[in-house]
């Protein structure tokens, strides 16, 4: 019996209608996107796990700014078979008039502990394995640093007081895991030179590469948590430091896929009316022939199932191709990342997607229970169906949001941005069509008629406008807003902060900068002091145990952060909660935290935050929260404390500062760097270049996403046209029956699509402007000044594309005639 029903379902599936095919397309696009996302993410996570295994260069790596004390060194030695120390310092290398910021790593004869150190005599030459690092008096530079300083093998490079000979090109360090994702240039020297180079206040990162068994790893972990909570520890059984970052990336993209599912919901809502008519008719006929309801329900489910299973191979092939392209692109960032398809994950993804698709189909299947023979005689609307559809769509979207949500703030922001855009597009559609219809009511002609008809079909028109408007919004948001953001940031920063930012200077370095600036007649625009502190506990609980979800703030708090002391609330900050301390307060164990960080870490006023400052554990009460506001400089700090801290905590003090230099003065900087190689200064040009690199990455990712959105938008247009095709054809036939020509129908159609495109375009631009203003205001407190020529050009392009596509897919409805009306 069941077999017969499945055979029937198969028979009807093979006679698939256009609706069935469109439904398959919508589901297929969603499946390709989710499969690509999950497979790519799995590839990266697998790569990171492998990377951790191969590039740790040790069984355990312990890293902190301070060297281990003798006692700590002895304790660690007791839990391991060998320890190798590497030290690194970020500094500026200078050679003649060239300079370049990079990381100097110092090692001794015992390096490397595990793995291969590879070097060559030529930047592009073949590399060889070296059993040890550079000898005293030598320096090895990586190929990029080597060429950016225009060096030759055998040249002498001055670092502070040391004169080092460039003897080899550094090709590979076996313990580069921690820098695996960084593009920072690097050099390797013997440890004795770092000691000569070091100046008071220089922050040298000490990394202990430890050989240990599994049991010893566990022992070291416990020991570190107890005695060195501020240190970072990585081990082969643990998670890659980048794993959370990529989890976050997947989650953001997953959340963004709500847009895709939302558009799919629009498309399916349009389709459901036609599907319901067909299925109800079929069920009613079956019932009139004596079949039972379960039979027709099983046939309907069978048809859907065959549709999904039928498109599965194609969706898998497309997803694999997209996955391959993405891995190929990501291989620039992760060398040795290889394409690998994960069948079990694919199976899970397909199953999860099918569940969501089923949720969308549920209202239709449910409504079949209400189908009866009476409907063959007297069709009646079923309002319950729409309510159930909305409920199902809401359920499906909520499930996706819940699955990908790791941060309430981020989820809230993404959903709010989407809802605002949707709300705006709907409001605009309603407002413009209503106003257009009202104003043109007393006029005759094609335009008033089109406006009237569009207003009457507000529901289906709104979905077309929503589909195209959302796609256009995302496209505009990516390409235009980020570009404008970059330009405004650069301009703003230059106006307020000059073109050179000192990101870390010791007291001695700052004194020399001041002297140099005075000599060059340069005003120092801003200068703010800070010390380094590492957050270790929240309300007495270790940080790692309080935070289980990835966040940007957590990623930063895994490293020591800059703690600023100040009596008054800085001019570029605004108090958002709590109370700022009175000037001269003796209560130094209180702090103010950036509001966004508080939200990210789930903190509230009154929480106790434990920091380690220069090996001293200090607790602070969270008494205030601040937000950044523009206008008086961009240097701001997440954590601010009263100046009284200086009387209780002994730690190196640093400064951040900003200056405005002329082009000629930039070349004078070499003198400062030669004297202070560890002085961290970055030019606006470099900052802009970094921003542009990030922008390029973000734009590529979102552009890929927009391809999926555009596909779905096109499908939404096709489906929405298909959904009203019979009404549209009838309308055209009736118009022809008034003696009007096909040209009139053509003009009406063109006008309708032009209005649809114009509303969608205006909505998208308005939404982009709104989002832009909000982001500028909330994040940078800047006025958003879009480029109107660009906007107009975008609107025209959008208008042409939507009109052309809409017009093309409406051709079937234009094949109308009075004959058809007579034949009905």
């Amino acid at each position: 019996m069941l077999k017969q029903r499945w055979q029937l379902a198969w028979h009807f599936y093979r006679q698939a209608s256009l609706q069935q095919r469109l439904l398959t397309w919508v589901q297929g696009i969603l499946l390709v996107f989710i499969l690509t996302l999950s497979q790519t993410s799995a590839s990266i996570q697998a790569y990171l796990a492998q990377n951790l295994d191969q590039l740790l260069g040790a069984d355990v790596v312990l890293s902190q700014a301070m060297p281990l004390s003798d006692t700590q060194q002895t304790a660690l030695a007791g839990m391991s078979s060998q320890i190798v120390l590497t030290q690194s310092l970020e500094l500026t290398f200078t050679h003649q008039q060239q300079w370049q910021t990079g990381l100097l790593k110092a090692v001794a004869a015992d390096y490397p502990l595990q793995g291969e150190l590879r070097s060559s005599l030529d930047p592009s030459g073949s590399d060889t394995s070296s059993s040890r690092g550079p000898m005293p008096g030598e320096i090895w530079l990586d190929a990029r640093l080597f060429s950016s300083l225009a060096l030759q093998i055998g040249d002498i490079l001055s670092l502070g007081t040391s004169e080092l000979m460039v003897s080899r090109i550094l090709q590979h360090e076996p313990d580069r895991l921690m820098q695996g994702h960084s593009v920072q240039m690097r050099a390797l020297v013997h440890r004795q030179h770092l000691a000569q180079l070091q100046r008071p206040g220089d922050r040298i990162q000490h990394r202990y590469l430890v050989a240990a068994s599994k049991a010893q790893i566990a022992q070291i972990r416990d020991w570190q948590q107890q005695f060195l909570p501020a240190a970072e520890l990585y081990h082969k059984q643990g998670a890659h430091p980048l794993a959370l970052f990529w989890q976050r990336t997947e989650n953001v993209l997953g959340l963004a896929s709500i847009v895709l599912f939302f558009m799919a919901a629009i498309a399916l809502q349009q389709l459901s009316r036609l599907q319901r008519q067909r299925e109800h008719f079929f069920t009613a006929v079956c019932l009139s022939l004596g079949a039972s309801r379960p039979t027709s329900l099983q046939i309907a489910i069978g048809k859907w199932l065959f549709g999904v299973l039928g498109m599965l191979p194609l969706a898998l092939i497309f997803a694999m191709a997209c996955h391959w392209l993405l891995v190929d692109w990501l291989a620039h960032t992760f060398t040795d990342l290889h394409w690998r398809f994960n069948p079990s994950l694919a199976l899970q993804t397909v199953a999860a997607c099918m569940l969501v698709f089923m949720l969308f189909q549920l209202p239709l299947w449910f409504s079949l229970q209400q189908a009866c023979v009476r409907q063959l005689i007297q069709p009646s609307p079923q309002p319950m169906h729409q309510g159930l559809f909305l409920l199902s769509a809401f359920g499906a979207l909520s499930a996706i949001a819940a699955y990908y949500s790791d941060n309430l703030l981020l989820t809230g922001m993404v959903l709010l941005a989407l809802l605002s855009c949707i709300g705006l597009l709907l409001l605009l559609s309603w407002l413009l069509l209503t106003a257009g219809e009202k104003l043109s009511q007393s006029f005759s002609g094609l335009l008033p008629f089109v406006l009237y008809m569009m207003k009457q079909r507000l529901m289906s028109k709104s979905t077309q406008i929503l589909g195209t408007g959302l796609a256009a919004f995302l496209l505009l948001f990516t390409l235009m807003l980020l570009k404008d953001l970059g330009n405004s940031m650069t301009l703003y920063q230059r106006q307020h902060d000059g073109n050179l930012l000192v990101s870390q200077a010791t007291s001695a370095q700052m004194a020399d900068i001041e002297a140099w600036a005075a000599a060059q007649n340069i005003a120092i625009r801003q200068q703010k002091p800070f010390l380094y502190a590492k957050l270790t506990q929240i309300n007495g609980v270790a940080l790692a145990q309080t935070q289980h979800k990835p966040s940007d703030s957590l990623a930063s708090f895994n490293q020591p952060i800059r703690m600023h002391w100040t009596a008054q609330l800085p001019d570029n900050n605004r108090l958002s909660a709590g109370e700022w301390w009175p000037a001269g307060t003796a209560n130094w164990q209180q702090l103010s935290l950036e509001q966004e960080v508080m939200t990210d870490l789930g903190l509230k006023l009154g929480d106790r935050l434990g920091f380690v400052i220069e090996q001293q554990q200090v607790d602070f009460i969270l008494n205030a929260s601040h937000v950044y506001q523009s206008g008086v400089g961009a240097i701001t700090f997440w954590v601010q404390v009263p100046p009284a801290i200086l009387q209780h905590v002994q730690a190196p003090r640093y400064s951040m500062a900003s200056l405005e230099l002329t082009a000629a003065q930039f070349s004078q900087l070499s003198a400062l760097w030669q004297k202070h190689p560890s002085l961290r200064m970055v030019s606006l040009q470099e900052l802009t270049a970094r921003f542009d690199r990030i922008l390029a990455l973000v734009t590529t990712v979102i552009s890929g996403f927009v391809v999926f959105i555009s596909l779905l938008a096109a499908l939404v247009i096709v489906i929405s046209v298909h959904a009203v095709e019979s009404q549209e054809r009838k309308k055209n036939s009736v118009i022809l029956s008034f003696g009007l020509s096909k040209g009139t129908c053509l003009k009406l159609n063109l006008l309708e699509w032009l209005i649809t495109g114009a509303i969608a375009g205006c909505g998208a631009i308005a939404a982009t402007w709104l989002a832009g203003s909000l982001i500028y205001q909330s994040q940078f407190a800047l006025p958003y000044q879009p480029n109107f020529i660009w906007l107009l050009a975008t609107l025209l392009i959008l208008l042409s594309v939507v009109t052309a596509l809409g017009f093309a897919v409406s051709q079937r409805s234009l094949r109308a005639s009075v004959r058809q009306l007579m034949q009905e």
Partner: protein
Amino acid sequence: MAYHLKSRIELCGVSQTFSQNAQQVQLFQDLTLTIAQGHSYAITGPSGSGKSSLLMLLSGLAQPSTGQGYWLENDSRRPLAGLAKEIGYIFQQFHLLPELTALHNVALPLKLRGVKHAEQLAKSWLDKVGLGHRLQHKPAQLSGGEQQRTAIARALVFSPKFIFADEPTGNLDSQNAQDIADLLFACCEEQGAGLVIVTHSELLAARAEQIFNLAQGHCQLRQSKLQEVYRA
């Protein structure tokens, strides 16, 4: 209206054939017929005899397989395709646009032609067909009879010279059918429009000035209250 000012439709020796399953099927052959503005005509015949096809030939919507169709006016003879703007249609299924109110359905042809005060004119026509109280109702809220009244108002509102009605009472009960027939004939007479009705209803056909019967490929005049000449 003086006869020489009236428009006429002439079919001269027309035949209509079509292909079905690789076979040529002949609906009718060598048919000559004249329809004059201001008079009423009924075409009857069994299902499949080609009544609707004849209606389409008369209205210029279809081209005959052989023979010619003309529109004659002011002593000029023009192809039937040029008649399109002078014709109104009434269908068995009414074919009102479901999104529009009765008023807007009737105003539609006027608005599309750019006629000023379209809604006022439409309102007066709805008053005329007895639907002055249903102006803002959509087709789904109207009965079958009311829908057909609206369709009649819509067909006549732009003063066409001919009205072609395909089974206009086919979907109505006998009382409604009678009322609609009264209305249709009265309105056409008042407007001086030629009325061509395709129907199975003998009662409706009997109200026309001439009745043609189409059967087995031939069209015969069954009854005439006119002094017109036809050849079949």
